[in-house]
């Protein structure tokens, strides 16, 4: 369930700042960098929706200027004082924060979608592969509590390689913790929409990301529990190309709807009207 193992098979976009080409992860086509960027990092050849930053996502979903962030200063704790071959986990998070400006793998807050008030969590893969740390879980739960208290819909946009092994068992416990928050929304009859983007795997797929009233995915997003290589070792054969894609999960009954990035905002708005109409 570690995000590192996942990161290997979803290597970062091999784009150097000065490259004019981008190679698509999904279809391996080479695309003009400019074209790809202006297309919101969606491959014009195969429609693969690559990762985007939370800022980009926010701009696509939330009305300009309406976002108020929660727990902005909450930093990833280091409960295990974890040290591995490369050094201290605490140093790693600090360096990541310096590099990305992110304190954790999720940003939470409230905002408006076409004027409708929502609570929102957006995961960002740049922070340790979007892994599920104690800070991640805390923020996701705390936003759920806000939604519960103010009777607002809750939307979580996932992008994660899974658990964060540097926080050991406490990373695992975030699965239970976040699901407890979702369970309360379910009991209160409040909408919870899960948006699964590339990639949503491991512990995140096996917790809050999979229990939406509606599960929406972006085209070709990789979504699954176990890693592809682990599965191939288990079953001793190669997996089909579409295995663990959004389309595969749709066919197998776990995704309600696959939506283009550009249409996500409208889609969320339209769906939530079915709740807010009362």
């Amino acid at each position, binding site marked *: 369930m570690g995000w590192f193992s996942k990161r290997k098979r979803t290597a970062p976009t091999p784009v150097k700042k000065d490259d004019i080409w981008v190679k698509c992860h999904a279809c391996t086509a080479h695309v003009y960098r400019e074209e790809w960027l202006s297309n919101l990092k969606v491959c014009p050849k195969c429609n693969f929706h690559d990762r985007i930053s939370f800022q980009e996502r926010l701009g696509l979903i939330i009305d300009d200027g309406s976002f108020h962030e929660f727990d902005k200063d909450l930093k990833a704790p280091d409960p295990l004082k974890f040290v591995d071959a490369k050094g201290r986990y605490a140093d790693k998070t600090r360096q990541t924060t310096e590099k990305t400006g992110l304190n954790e793998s999720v940003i939470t807050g409230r905002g408006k979608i076409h004027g409708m008030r929502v609570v929102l969590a957006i995961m960002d893969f740049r922070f340790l592969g979007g892994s599920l740390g104690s800070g991640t879980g805390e923020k996701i739960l705390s936003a759920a509590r806000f939604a519960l208290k103010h009777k607002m819909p809750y939307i979580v946009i996932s992008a994660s390689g899974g658990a964060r*092994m540097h926080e050991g068992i406490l990373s695992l416990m975030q699965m239970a913790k976040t699901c407890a928050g979702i369970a*309360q929304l379910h009991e209160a009859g409040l909408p919870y929409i899960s948006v699964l983007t590339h990639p949503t795997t491991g512990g995140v797929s*096996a917790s809050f990301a999979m*229990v939406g009233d509606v599960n929406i995915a972006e085209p070709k997003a990789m979504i*699954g529990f176990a890693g592809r290589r682990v599965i191939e070792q288990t079953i001793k054969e190669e997996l089909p190309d579409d295995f663990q894609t959004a389309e595969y999960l749709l066919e197998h009954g776990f995704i309600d709807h696959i939506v283009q990035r550009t249409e996500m905002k409208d889609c969320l708005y339209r769906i939530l009207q079915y709740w807010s109409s009362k």
Partner: protein
Amino acid sequence: MEDSFDKTILELESRIEELKKLNMKPEVQFDSEISELEKKLKRTMKKTFSKLTPWQVVQVARHKNRPVLRDYIAMIFDEFIELHGDRCFGDDHGMIGGFAMIGKKRVILIGHQKGKTVEDQVKNNFGMASPDGYRKALRLMKLAEKYKLPVLSFIDTPGAYPGADAEARGQAEAIAKNLTEMAVLKTPIIVIVTGEGGSGGALGIGVGDAVLMLSNSIYSVISPEGCASILWRDGAKAPEAAAALKLTAPSLLELGVIDEIIQEPVGGAHRDYAATADAVKEALVRHTRRLQRYKIRKLVEKRYDKYARMGKL
């Protein structure tokens, strides 16, 4: 077991065994030697097991003779009426459950079944449950809620089954659903980790009001081998990873993830089934009794609060 921390113990045990066999014959007499060796064994065992490294605990937790769920059922429960199936697709043998009686208490029992014979292990996927298993467990927990029975959940799994069919049928969804439903299940849930608590596959039946752990069991987000091969880029560094992951009972108690450690007999559960079973039974009955005193609403509130605090340091 690459680790030979119990080499001396095993040697002593086998010598005692030998002498005892010889001792059966009338012409020889090894009583005093046996007694001497037994004392030495006891001392060595106590010494060794009082300071096991995390990696050594991993070995004990995975020991091939360690009691599995069916052993506990036979030793602890006065009745077990196994119930089968997820009412949807199949009946997973890696996850079993049913009505059970412990002391005078009637409960719903669920848990991973690892198996000991090769045949069993294949049938049970070595205790790695499939989505059907998690869905069966949830169905039984809902039955417990309806019949107002406490749930006892036994964890012992390397992890959820990582097969292609398990993915296709929604391993992630099945576990996620269980976590969500268990958080608000309206009956007491007592969880015990008896061997390996392997990641999401363990947690999928692991949300509870009381989470207990046998002293030589482990509970971890990833196997030490897996962690080592990723973070150390060398599977042989598993002992280092085991230490870093804090996967032993005392660490987990300190982190607030578990509520109580059940002490195993010196030498580990696999050396004394009866004493282990007694300790497990005592703890389960005690916690069941304790939790049944709560009003359900209060119980669920406390459960929520507990998980809401996880990792909030």
